[in-house]
């Protein structure tokens, strides 16, 4: 188990940097905004290079790069101030589809590995915050198939998905269903999030599905979701790590060049020390994300779960702090969309609102750590 990047990882990182900066440089400058890569173009380019789904198993069209490569990918994407849909369009559905033995699931997973985003996971419900263990959406037996009723909210990439993976209570358990977007009774309503990405709410009214639509049964769904959201949290922590690295780098450069009251901003010791503290926070986050990647690489253990929760609890706080400081240290220009530094705050916020607050991940961490200790 090593912390330093492997040759594969360095290669992927370089590849990402090239593609991302090329996409960025060639992107149009509209309405005074900083050039941002068009998401679809970016996705297909990365898909072509094989990195988009490289973390997925062979059977799902990936190249088995595992958590370390997912980290490399997410961290690289985190450095770019643009929405890319990795977690909502690739990680969450990818984990679930790769676990399934169905042919339709495998086909969808292979499309995801190319950079397409045909599937979105609908697991959150109004008022339930981050608890997905007891959905109010219900699945009832209906002839050979199922009838579903309920409401879903905050579905990432849901505005453009062709198919949804929908969680629903079945008996005492939670099942997962594959539901095409056009299914009668399913109403998809899109709305923008604060970072400009499109999300959706779903209203499910007597949606009937064939038996084959069930991806996971009531004895499996909850565990599948937990694993998917653990990997999502890991990718999010990696993405926020990349975001922090980029934001601090840009800020340090700015401090060195911008003059105020006749001297470079960097000459202010109070600002130097703030940068030093941010660097220290980021070093700790980096260490923990790497630790989580290594633990996950050994398998989906309690230790891996606690390491991921620890990484994300730190990422939420460090991401928020670094982004706020980066904006502030840029002064007024930091407040503009044009500069792009504010995007790091938008991103950190969206990831934590969606996947869980620092408190949420600390509670998850402690439970996993205690279970681990009891098991030992």
């Amino acid at each position, binding site marked *: 188990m090593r912390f330093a990047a492997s040759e594969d990882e360095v290669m992927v990182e370089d590849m990402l940097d090239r593609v991302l900066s090329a996409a960025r440089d060639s992107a149009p400058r509209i309405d005074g905004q900083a050039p941002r890569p068009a998401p679809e173009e970016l996705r297909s380019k990365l898909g072509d290079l094989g990195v988009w789904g490289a973390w997925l198993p062979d059977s799902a069209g990936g190249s088995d790069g595992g958590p370390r490569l997912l980290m490399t990918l997410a961290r690289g994407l985190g450095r770019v101030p643009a929405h890319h849909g990795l977690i909502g369009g690739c990680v969450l559905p990818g984990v679930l589809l790769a676990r399934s033995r169905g042919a339709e699931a495998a086909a969808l997973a292979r499309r995801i590995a190319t950079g397409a985003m045909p599937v979105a996971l609908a697991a959150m419900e109004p008022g339930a*915050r981050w608890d997905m263990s007891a959905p109010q959406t219900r699945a009832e037996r209906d002839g050979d198939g199922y009838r579903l009723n309920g409401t879903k909210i905050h579905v990432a990439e849901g505005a453009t998905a062709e198919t949804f993976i929908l969680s629903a209570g079945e008996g005492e358990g939670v099942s997962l269903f594959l539901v095409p977007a056009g299914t009668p009774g399913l109403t998809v*309503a899109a709305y923008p999030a604060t970072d400009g990405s499109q999300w959706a*709410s779903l209203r499910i009214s007597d949606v009937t599905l064939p038996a084959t639509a069930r991806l996971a049964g009531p004895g499996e769904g909850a565990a599948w979701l937990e694993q998917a959201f653990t990997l999502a949290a890991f990718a999010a922590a990696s993405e926020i790590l990349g975001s922090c690295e980029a934001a601090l780098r840009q800020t340090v450069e700015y401090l060195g060049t911008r003059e105020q009251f006749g001297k470079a901003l960097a000459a202010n010791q109070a600002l130097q020390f703030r940068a030093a503290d941010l660097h220290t926070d980021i070093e700790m986050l980096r260490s923990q994300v790497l630790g989580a990647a290594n633990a996950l690489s050994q398998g989906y253990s309690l230790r891996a779960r606690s390491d991921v929760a620890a990484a994300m609890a730190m990422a939420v706080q460090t991401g928020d702090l670094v982004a706020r400081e980066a904006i502030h240290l840029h002064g007024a220009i*930091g*407040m503009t969309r044009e500069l792009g530094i504010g995007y790091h705050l938008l991103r950190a916020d969206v990831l934590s609102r969606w996947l869980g*607050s620092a*408190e949420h991940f600390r509670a998850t961490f402690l439970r996993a750590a205690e279970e681990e200790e009891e098991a030992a």
Partner: protein
Amino acid sequence: MNMQMSSEAAFRAEIAEFCKQNLDPEMRRLSDLGLSVGQDMAKDWQQRLVARGWGAPAWDAQWGGAGWDMRKLFIFEEEMAAHGAPQVATFNIKMIGPILQAHGDAAQQAHFLPRALRMDDVWCQGYSEPGAGSDLASLQTRAERDGDDYIVNGTKIWTSGGHLADHMFCLVRTSREGRRQGGISFLLTDLATPGITRRPIRHFYGAHVFNQFFFDNVRVPVANRVGQENAGWGIAKSLLEHERLFSARHTEARRKLGRLTRLSREVKIGNRPAIEDAQFRDDLAKRMIELRALENATMRALERLVDDGGIGPYASVLKLRGIEVNQRLDRAIVQLLGPDALPAEAAWEGDALDGLIPDEARNAAESRYWWRGPAIAGGSQEVQRTIITKHILNL
């Protein structure tokens, strides 16, 4: 502090009654959510205030002021905020009005003051430039005499509400001699004047908040200069001492606390309302305590102002802490909302979220983003710390 408790209560009741009679529920709702009420509603509200004699209570009586002492002015602001009244025409009422009364000539006063009071003109402020923000004295936009006009060239940036305004008061360089502050003049500019162009600047969260103005050989009559040539710096700095009390922005914090408290009864953590969750309660208590201390600090400042006529560098203490208190409340609100802080304000235009998330979620995230700005504008937090270091601690 010569106001008796009973007359204070009566005055507060009078304001409450006025708001009850005049404040449209939609206007209050928007204000409570930190949203702008829009120009039409703002003008309507200002007319009602003017009709009551409260359109610009701090102004001289001859221009529509109410003749109140500082304590009464302070209570007025607090109560208006507490009842959800919108803040309208700040640049008209709190900036250019007082400046013209103190430094304008008779013609400027007679023409501009009534129009500013009624919002016939809408003003914005042209101080900052790309290289002159915290270090304002380094501003470069120059005005050169040409007969009865100045020819103005340069650019002004970070102009809040510039896209809604038709007039700008600005600082321009009329001399390069002596210390930098000494060569600056104060000009009134009609934004319809040929040669002025405007570029919108979007905030990082997407909203159109700021603007940049370009001046390309713009003719401004010398008659529109306020005060003497090269005396603009002092004029710009001569804000009403009474306004410095509001550096703490405690009235805005109080509104936010109301929002947080309402949400805490609506949002559930586990299976209970947040207000019953021990950890949320501890956070709420932190926010309430620091706001209460800030309010006491503001009252102390008011007492000092009444006693001594000024509060000096104490305003920096109020600003430094007031912004932090506001920002922590912003954060507490989005944290309590959790996933429901995801949707952008624009999501309320459709029905995707109807009945699914609390209405108080609207604009919660954006409000937090907007409030990053006051930590930079009007003297950054670092500038305030420097003032405290130099002028209070004498380090």
